[in-house]
C-alpha cells in the first residue's frame, strides 16, 4: 500500500527508479524508518524503467561488477549471494578475476526482494513532483507540489533522482524521424525493436548499447554496419576507469575545474564498451559470414528508398556514398541536458541556477548551488550528477551518492544509528532472502 499524502518527511526522493531504491535501502539500513522517508513517483516498480530498457537492448548481464547491487553495504557482494544461492563456487572464482557481472534477471530479483523487505512501497507517494519550493521558516525545508500544483508534502532533505532525459538522436536522424514515411525505420537502441532475417541495418555508435545491437542483429540473421565517428573505441569493462569509482579518483576529479571535468568526461565516456568474449565470437562469426562490418563516418542524408531507407554517408577515410538499408539503429543514448527534465528546467529557470552546456554546475557534494544547505540538503543523483561523480548514472555511482547523502541527513538529524549486531543481522537475513529468491531464477550466462 502506498503512503497517504500530503506527507511530511525527513528525507524525500523525487523519482521512483534505481536511485530511489538505493537511497531508501541505505536510509533504512542506517536506522531511518519508513515514516521518515518519502519516495515520490507513479511507478510501482523501482526497476521497471531499467527493466524495459534492458529488454529493449537485449541486455542479459550488467556491465557493473559484484559490488554493484541493491544492498546498502558492500557485504555480501552479489557474487557471494549468487554462489550461496546456487551452491556453486563459480561466481566467486569469476569475481576474484573481475569477470563476474550480475545477470539482469538476478539483479532485478534482488531489487524486488530489497524493495519488499525495506518497505519501499510504504514510503511511496504515487505522484510526480512538479515543483519544489525552498522555505527557511520555521526551519529550512522544501515544500513539494505535484504537476497540477497541488501541495503534496514537505521534507527537510530532498534527493533529486529524476533519471535520464529523453532519448537522443543525431540531428540528421532527428529530422528524418519527423517524416512519417521514415520514422518507423529509425530507432533508438533503447526502444523496442524487431529485426528480420536478411535485414540490413546501420548501427550508430560503439558503446555498450550499440554492441548489444550488433549481436542482436547478427543473431536473427541480419547484417549490421557499425558506423562510428571515431576510428577505434576504447575497450574497458566499466563506464569509467576503475579508480575513478572510488574516492581516490573522485578526489582528483572533483578537484578539477568544472570545464576540465566536463572535458575529461567527454574523453573517458566516448563510446567505450566492455570486452565480452561471447559478443566477440558472435561478431567475428558475422564478419566471416560477410554480415558485419565497421566504418567511420557520419550519416549526411536520409530518404525513403526501395529497401526502406536510402542513406548517404560521409565516410571519414573511405568513400561510402548512398546505401539502401532496412533501418538505422542509434546507440546514441540519452539527452544529457538537465533542461530536458521538466522539474529541473523549472528549478533552473526560477532560481537562476548555473548551467553550462546543459549541465547543472553542482557543488562538490552533488548539492544544488544556492538551494542546498548542510541542515537541509538538496542533492542530485544519476546522470545529472556525473560532473561531480563520473559514474553517477551507474549502480555503483548511485550507491556512492546515496550513501553520502543519507549519511549527511543522518548527521544533520542526529540519527540514532542501527547498532552493529542489528546491521549484521539485517544483512544476513537480506542475503538469505535474496539467495532464496535467486534459486527460482535460471542462471544467466556470463559473457566475459
Amino acid at each position, binding site marked *: 500500500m502506498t503512503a497517504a499524502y500530503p506527507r511530511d518527511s525527513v528525507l524525500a526522493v523525487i523519482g521512483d527508479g534505481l536511485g530511489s531504491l538505493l537511497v531508501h535501502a541505505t536510509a533504512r539500513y542506517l536506522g531511518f524508518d519508513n515514516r521518515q522517508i518519502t519516495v515520490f513517483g507513479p511507478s510501482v516498480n523501482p526497476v521497471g524503467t531499467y527493466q524495459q530498457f534492458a529488454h529493449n537492448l537485449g541486455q542479459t548481464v550488467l556491465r557493473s561488477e559484484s559490488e554493484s547491487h541493491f544492498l546498502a553495504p558492500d557485504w555480501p557482494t552479489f557474487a557471494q549471494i549468487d554462489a550461496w544461492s546456487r551452491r556453486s563456487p563459480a561466481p566467486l572464482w569469476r569475481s576474484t578475476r573481475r569477470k563476474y557481472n550480475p545477470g539482469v534477471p538476478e539483479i532485478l530479483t534482488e531489487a524486488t526482494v530489497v524493495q519488499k523487505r525495506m518497505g519501499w512501497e510504504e514510503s511511496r507517494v504515487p505522484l510526480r513532483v512538479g515543483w519544489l519550493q525552498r522555505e527557511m521558516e520555521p526551519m529550512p525545508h522544501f515544500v513539494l507540489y505535484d504537476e497540477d500544483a497541488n501541495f503534496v508534502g514537505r521534507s527537510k532533505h530532498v534527493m533529486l533522482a529524476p533519471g535520464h532525459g529523453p532519448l537522443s538522436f543525431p540531428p540528421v536522424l532527428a529530422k528524418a524521424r519527423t517524416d512519417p514515411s521514415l520514422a518507423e525505420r529509425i530507432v533508438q537502441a533503447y526502444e523496442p525493436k524487431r529485426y528480420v532475417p536478411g535485414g540490413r541495418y546501420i548501427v550508430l555508435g560503439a558503446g555498450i548499447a550499440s554492441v548489444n545491437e550488433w549481436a542482436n542483429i547478427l543473431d536473427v540473421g541480419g547484417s549490421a554496419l557499425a558506423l562510428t565517428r571515431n576510428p577505434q573505441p576504447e575497450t574497458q569493462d566499466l563506464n569509467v576507469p576503475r579508480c575513478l569509482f572510488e574516492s581516490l579518483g573522485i*578526489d582528483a576529479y572533483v578537484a578539477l575545474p568544472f570545464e576540465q571535468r566536463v572535458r575529461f568526461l567527454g574523453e573517458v565516456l566516448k563510446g567505450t564498451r566492455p570486452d565480452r568474449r561471447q559478443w566477440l565470437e558472435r561478431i567475428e562469426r558475422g564478419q566471416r559470414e560477410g554480415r558485419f562490418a565497421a566504418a567511420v563516418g557520419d550519416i549526411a542524408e536520409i530518404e525513403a528508398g526501395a529497401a526502406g531507407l536510402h542513406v548517404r554517408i560521409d565516410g571519414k577515410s573511405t568513400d561510402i556514398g548512398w546505401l539502401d538499408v532496412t533501418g538505422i539503429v542509434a546507440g546514441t543514448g540519452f539527452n544529457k541536458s538537465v533542461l530536458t527534465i521538466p522539474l529541473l528546467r523549472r528549478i533552473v529557470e526560477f532560481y537562476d541556477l548555473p548551467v553550462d552546456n546543459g549541465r547543472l554546475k553542482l557543488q562538490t557534494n552533488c548539492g544544488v548551488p544556492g538551494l542546498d544547505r548542510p541542515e537541509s540538503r538538496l542533492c542530485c543523483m544519476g546522470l545529472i550528477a556525473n560532473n561531480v561523480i563520473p559514474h553517477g548514472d551507474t549502480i555503483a555511482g548511485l550507491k556512492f551518492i546515496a550513501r553520502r547523502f543519507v549519511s549527511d541527513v543522518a548527521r544533520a538529524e542526529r540519527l540514532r544509528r542501527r547498532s552493529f549486531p542489528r546491521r549484521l543481522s539485517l544483512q544476513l537475513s537480506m542475503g538469505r532472502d535474496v539467495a532464496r529468491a535467486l534459486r527460482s531464477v535460471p542462471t544467466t550466462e556470463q559473457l566475459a
Partner: protein
Amino acid sequence: MCPTSLGRVQTRWAILIAPAVIAAIVSAITGNAGWIVLIGVYFVLGVALDSGFYPLVIRWQPPWLTFVLAGGEFVLVFILAHVLKLGLTNLEAIALYWGAWVMAIWTKVALLPLLSLGWIENAGEFRQTGWSVAPEYMPLAVTVFEPHMGAGEAPALVRQFSSVHALPDELRNLPSPSAIRPSPLSRTG
C-alpha cells in the same frame, strides 16, 4: 579496489586486532611470547610493505592479488620468524599465520563494509562517509529583496494601492489574471 597507503595501513591495523588479541591470550596461557611476537612481526612487515612497496607497484588491486600477497607475506614472515628465533615450531608458526590471515580476511571482507559504508570506496581508509571535497555553499536568494520592516511610512506602491483613494476609472472592469477558460466541450456537453 584502489587502496591508498593510508588506507592499507589503517586496514592492516583494523584486521589484525582480533588475531593479536587471540595470540596474546595464547601467549599468556602458554607462557610463550612467540605467539604475540609473530603477530607483531606480521604487522610491522605488513605496514612496511603497505607504506613503502605496494603503493609503488599496485594501483588497482584485483581480488585475486589478495591471495598472491598473502603467499608472499607468508614467506617473508616465515623467514623473519626463523631469523628472530621466536620460539615457535614451524607448524605453530604456519598455523598461526594462516589462522590470523583467515580471521583478518573475514574482518576485511565482511565486517569492515558493515562498520563503514564507504570503506571500500574510501580506498580502505576509515573516513566519515562523506564527500571528498567540502562544498562551498552559496548564499540563497529566496526573496528578491528584503520587505519593508521599518516603523516609518509605508512604501509608495502600498500607498498607491490603498483603498483610501478613489479607484481610477481605467482600473475598473479589467479582466482577471487567470487564463483558465471553460473547455468548449463543457459548454456543449
